[in-house]
């Protein structure tokens, strides 16, 4: 047995042979260790590109379940003819907290917010970047964070405002009151504008956010929160900087002068998802058609009815449907003609018109409103009453901004007209439908999000 003891050094020997160096491996080529991402401008830009890409691909803005179509059918813009169960719920106002679209909006939204926060945190700790670069990138990330929160608060009401990457904090987070969410959005945007102002950001075909893009959202948020002066001033800066595209046919082309921010499509030949979803090529086969009430809203002679909508009939002519035709290039197009536009100048004119009307500057309001009307081939309005003028602006928003990111639905909500407009159209309408339910599985995971929105 003595030899057994002699063997003990062997164990030690073999143990040291199996040394710890052997189990150190290099990271794989498809990943970068996080700290290194923020030491080089090109990798930071890659991380930022992820934000824009995610917003374009799947989520609330663009993509297959974006606001354009789904808030369109939830509100009074579009009729839904297909049978996706989650979409049908939205169309018929029978939404349940299990609706997969809502879960998608929620999870994808917060995923982008995490990515933005991680960039902000990474930049703060970075050592390899100049102060200018840090400011500009941080401005872009702050803008994205504010933008996604603005979409979430728009449909869900009170939502958590996430500003950290700490999962312990975020997994138990609570909902913030709607007004405070907007306050946080405005604060982030003001900071983003300050950080990016004057920076030389290579925006290409206006596909990367800069200070003006942050301003465009700031003006919209100011309008939604009734900060009229801020809205008028911010929109004014943009109106001074961008021209209104005079030709209706060119407004949605990728070169359009009035575009403030648009998404670069997947490859050089691609066009927009909006065209592929909204344009009806065959009946049967229709999915989204314009509602009769929207078609009725166009005044006689409105160029937009002719240029921005079209209609199609089935083979024996028994069924004719109208569809949104702002974006025209389908996926069998062989060149990239159109990009998905997120912000364009016409909205800013209407924001300033409304803000001015609220501030009592009725002349200025009429001027802005008429700029948009004239482009559509309509004459000036000469209304003198503030209320009538505001009504005219709401009407103008409806026909100018139809089928664009659910702006119509947001207007109905913020102006308190949702019940008045929706009740006659949707048999299942309830006042509580101004908010959609928080996804149920999220309430299960984080009970701090309780209670559910009323009515669900």
């Amino acid at each position, binding site marked *: 047995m003595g030899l057994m003891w002699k*063997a003990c050094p*062997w*164990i030690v020997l*073999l*143990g040291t042979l*199996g040394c*710890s160096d*052997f*189990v*150190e*491996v*290099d*990271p*794989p*080529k*498809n*990943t970068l*260790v*996080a*700290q290194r*991402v923020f030491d080089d401008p*090109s*990798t930071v*830009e*890659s*991380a930022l*590109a*992820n934000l824009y*890409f*995610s917003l*374009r691909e799947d989520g609330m803005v663009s993509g297959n379940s974006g606001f354009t179509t789904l808030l369109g059918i939830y509100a009074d813009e579009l009729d839904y003819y297909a*049978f996706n*169960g989650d979409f049908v719920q939205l169309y018929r106002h*029978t939404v349940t907290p299990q609706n997969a679209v809502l*879960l998608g909006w929620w999870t994808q939204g*917060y*995923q982008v917010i*995490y*990515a933005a926060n*991680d960039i902000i945190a990474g930049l703060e700790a970075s050592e390899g970047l100049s102060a200018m670069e840090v400011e500009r990138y941080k401005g872009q990330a702050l803008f994205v964070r504010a933008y996604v929160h603005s979409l979430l608060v728009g449909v869900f009401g009170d939502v958590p405002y996430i500003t950290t990457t700490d*999962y312990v904090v*975020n*997994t*138990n987070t609570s909902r913030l009151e709607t007004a405070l969410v907007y306050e946080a959005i405005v604060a982030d945007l003001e900071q983003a504008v300050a950080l990016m102002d004057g920076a030389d950001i290579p925006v290409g075909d206006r*596909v*990367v956010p800069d200070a003006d893009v942050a301003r465009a959202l700031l003006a919209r948020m100011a309008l939604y929160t009734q900060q009229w002066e801020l809205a008028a001033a911010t929109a004014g800066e943009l109106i001074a900087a961008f021209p209104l595209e005079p030709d209706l046919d060119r407004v949605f082309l990728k070169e359009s002068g009035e575009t403030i921010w648009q998404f*670069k499509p997947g*490859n050089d*030949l691609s066009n927009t998802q909006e065209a592929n979803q909204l344009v009806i*090529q*065959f009946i*049967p*086969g229709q999915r989204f058609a314009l509602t009769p009430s929207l078609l009725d809203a166009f005044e006689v002679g409105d160029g937009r009815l002719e240029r921005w909508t079209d209609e199609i009939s089935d083979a024996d002519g028994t069924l004719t449907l109208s569809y949104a035709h702002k974006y025209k290039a*389908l*996926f*069998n197009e*062989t060149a990239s003609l159109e990009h998905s536009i997120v912000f364009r100048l016409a909205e800013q004119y209407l924001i300033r018109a409304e803000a001015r009307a609220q501030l009592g500057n009725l002349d200025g309001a009429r001027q802005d409103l008429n700029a948009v009307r004239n482009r559509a081939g309509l004459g000036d309005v000469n209304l003198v009453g503030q209320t009538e003028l505001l009504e005219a602006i709401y009407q103008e928003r409806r026909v100018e901004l139809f089928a664009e990111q659910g702006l119509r639905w947001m207007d109905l909500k913020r102006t308190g007209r949702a019940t008045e407009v929706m009740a006659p159209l949707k048999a299942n309408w309830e006042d509580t439908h101004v908010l959609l339910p928080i996804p*149920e599985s*999220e309430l299960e995971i984080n009970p701090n*999000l309780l209670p559910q929105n009323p009515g669900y």
Partner: protein
Amino acid sequence: MQLITIRMRRASLFVLLYALLMPFCTFYMQAGTFLEPPQATVSGTVTDSAGEPLAGVNLVVESKDIGTMSGLDGSFSITAGPSDVLVFSMVGFKTLTVPIAGREEVSVIMEEDVTVLGEVVLNAGYYTVSERERTGNIATIKAEMMEKQPVGNPLAAMQGQLSGVNIVQNTGVPGGGFTIDIRGRNFINGASDPLFIVDGVPISSQSLGSNDVSGQILGGNTSPLNAINPNDIESIEVLKDADATAIYGSRGANGVVLITTKKGRVGETRFNAQMSSSLGRVTNFLELLNTQQYLELRREGVVNDGFGDFLENPAFDFAWPDIKTWDNDRYTDWQEELIGGTAYRNNLQLSVSGGSERTQFLISGSYLKETTVFPGDANYKKANVNSNLSHRSDNGRFKINLSTLYTREDNLMPRSDLTSVAYTLEPNAPEIYDDEGNLNWEDNTFDNPFAALEERFGQASQTLISNALLSYALWPDLEVRTSLGYNRYQLDSYRTLPSSAVNPGRGLTPQTYSSLTLNTADRESWIVEPQISWNPTWNTFDVEVLLGTTFQKETAQQFVQRGTGYPNDLLIQNLAAASTVEVLGDTDSEYAYTAVFGRVNVNFLDRYILNLTGRRDGSSRFGPGRQFGNFGAVGLAWLFSEEKPFANSSWLSFGKLRGSYGTTGSDNIGDYRFLDTYDVTGFDYNGISILEPTGIFNPLFGWESNTKLEVGLELGFFRDRLRLETSFFRNRSSNQLIGIPLAATTGFSELTGNFDATVENTGVEVDLNAMMFQGKDFGWSTRFTLTVPENKLIAFDGLEDSTFADRYIIGEPLTIVRLYESLGVDPETGIYQFEDFNGDGEITSLGDREWLEDLAPEFYGGFGQNIRWGNLGLDFFFQFKKQKAYNELRAFSVPGARRNLPIRLLDRWQEPGDEATVQLASAGLAPGEDTGALQSRSNAAVSDASFIRLRNITLNYRVPNLGDRLDINVYLQGQNLWTITDYTGPDPEQPSTVRLPQLRQLTLGLQLGF
């Protein structure tokens, strides 16, 4: 390097020390007997009945405490008196008592022990152990059991045969994968896959398939074990308890499966050929609605949804073409059309083997071609070469064994499984082809399922497993050896989506739609395991000591790309013809693993056995400071049948009580999980390639640990003709590495970390083997296995507040599902009713999913009979399992939508007062609560899926009187021929409505040897 040289020097010092010490030991022994005259040196050789020298035979002079061992050439020499008696003993051989009777030279031939126990030597991985003396739980299946089954994957041949091993085939599509668990599910997250080792080389069971390519046909899973031809396997050993698995340390938690391939044998060169052909059909079809029943439900559904008026308005015909525009009298049995074909399998294997006493070889090649039950020319081909060479030097000190296995598989399949289409396609769906032979789209109202056949999935894989085992005996009882292994797995797969397979109404062209997705992946690993073993014997003590170390490295690469936009569909296979090429993934990973391990086995008096094993492991999957872990086990066995009361028992021939306790671990969590990283996604935005955060990182996680306890009783009766083994086990897995679900507000759905949760698997296993009758012309043996497992979550700190609160319950199995309690259909409203557990007036998933069902098997096992009568042999094997599973209601529980359904959904409510099992029809157009979805998530969607299945039956005829060398066998085999079950879904074994059920196969085969 210098260090190593020093250590090497030290190593030779030990060897020297041993060499010097040993003679002294013998000298002392000699000295002790010096005074007893007259003594002489007796020498001789020990051989087995085949004349092979036997090394390591224990030799004792009876009545004296003198002993020695035979050398490598079988020779021995010992000092004894002329009237002494020599006792020769060795595992697997009958003990021999030989009187010296004055001779100086004694040569003996030892006979192999006829009892099963002595014969069976088990491969325990780093060492071998006899069935009789093992302290651990090792189940084994030998070649003769596997040869009887016409299957393509060794796992298929093991199904039901081994206690404690639960194997389920994922799909009936050839080339698919298997789910295997040994003694239950240990970990809340993570794979239950055991460690697979083929001839000493660890094989990763993870597929390299890309979900983008194979997701819809094979479920993304391709089993790398498909590369191993079951006919090339000599034995498979499954290590189950701590005693057997602890030497595999961190990789042993889920058990270890050791596969040993066949080797050449001493003797004349033999040729062997085996040919077989099989016919296969799907085991079971569902009973579905016919056209008349279907349309009745459809119309009812549309009317119930409030669209009755629209039904008569032609403007809305487009919404329900099956009711309005398609032929209402047409009927097609789509199961027959889509999965009703006959699959052919042809297999040819040729082998040649033989060898001299010092060198043996075996070379075997096989080819297999298998078609599918789908229409079209889909097929799976496999070619395989297995070779083995062993050699030992003249003096028997040096031995080398080389084994190499190479397999090429070609799988050409439709890109998606047609099974779910076969179950759901409308029974009055139109013609598949129009008059010109083109796919019929029925004016764009019909998504033609045969279009999927134009979308191809192809996969070519190559596997190389090579092992060299070199050993050198420094002394008869001291051996140094090294095992060297190399494994390479290469996979190329593609999927094509031509525009011709899409409804032309969508206006797609090759330029805008057609695409080719390619996946190129390979995985390479090498392993080096130097070992030293020392097996001294002192009198009544037999000791085995093993010490070894492991270095293993594995690298994997995967490259997935997609080309879109082709000038025409004919060029779709050529990526160069695509107008756009995207890289979907370009990943690599590296895994490094190192360990030192050891074993000490002490056998006292041939009846008390102690086995100690241990391992220290390091793995690159953990962050700095957390890479190493220690594992070990102790095993004990008491052969009580050797004790006095039983020594000469006429009925009890063998009795052993054994137990073991120890810890193992698991690092089966994927590579690099401790790093905070950004991934290159392969996409770009505005020309800038995209980096996305990989996930929330946690650098602090460590090994999962698994503590195993086992007690076993083994009995042999009537000279071991009846053998019974029962074991009880209790495995506890803690420090669980869990992807803790996170609220989406964190940006991710989970975080990996060690959770203070413990999962317990307990169970009883029974193995019974009986040689009912054993005669020259007639033999009958029977075997039976039974496993009664139980899984329980016994601790989970903070479960109530955790994100698992909704899924698991302490004291219940991990395999439970929480369901609504269905109360049937309200006779007044015709709507499904559910128990409102929390009494809030609403049925919500938060408070009302309180009905629990456990979907793990309650017990499982098999029983087989082997009958031999003259030249005829009959072998059959039944597999049984008691379990519950989701039934067809899980997929759909409300009739009336545009899909076919099982006939039981015809029993729907129609008017107030109806007592029906199914709620009123709905076309899915009505708003309101989706009670159908609740029903699908209720206890009504779970039913008994127990079964007894005639897994295999073989009738073999050995053609007699053909001379010495010629040996011909003809056999007829049936696989899955008969199933007894109450289950109403397609297959109780794999209760899925989207994957092809297992096939029933009939095989005719011929085996020829000369």
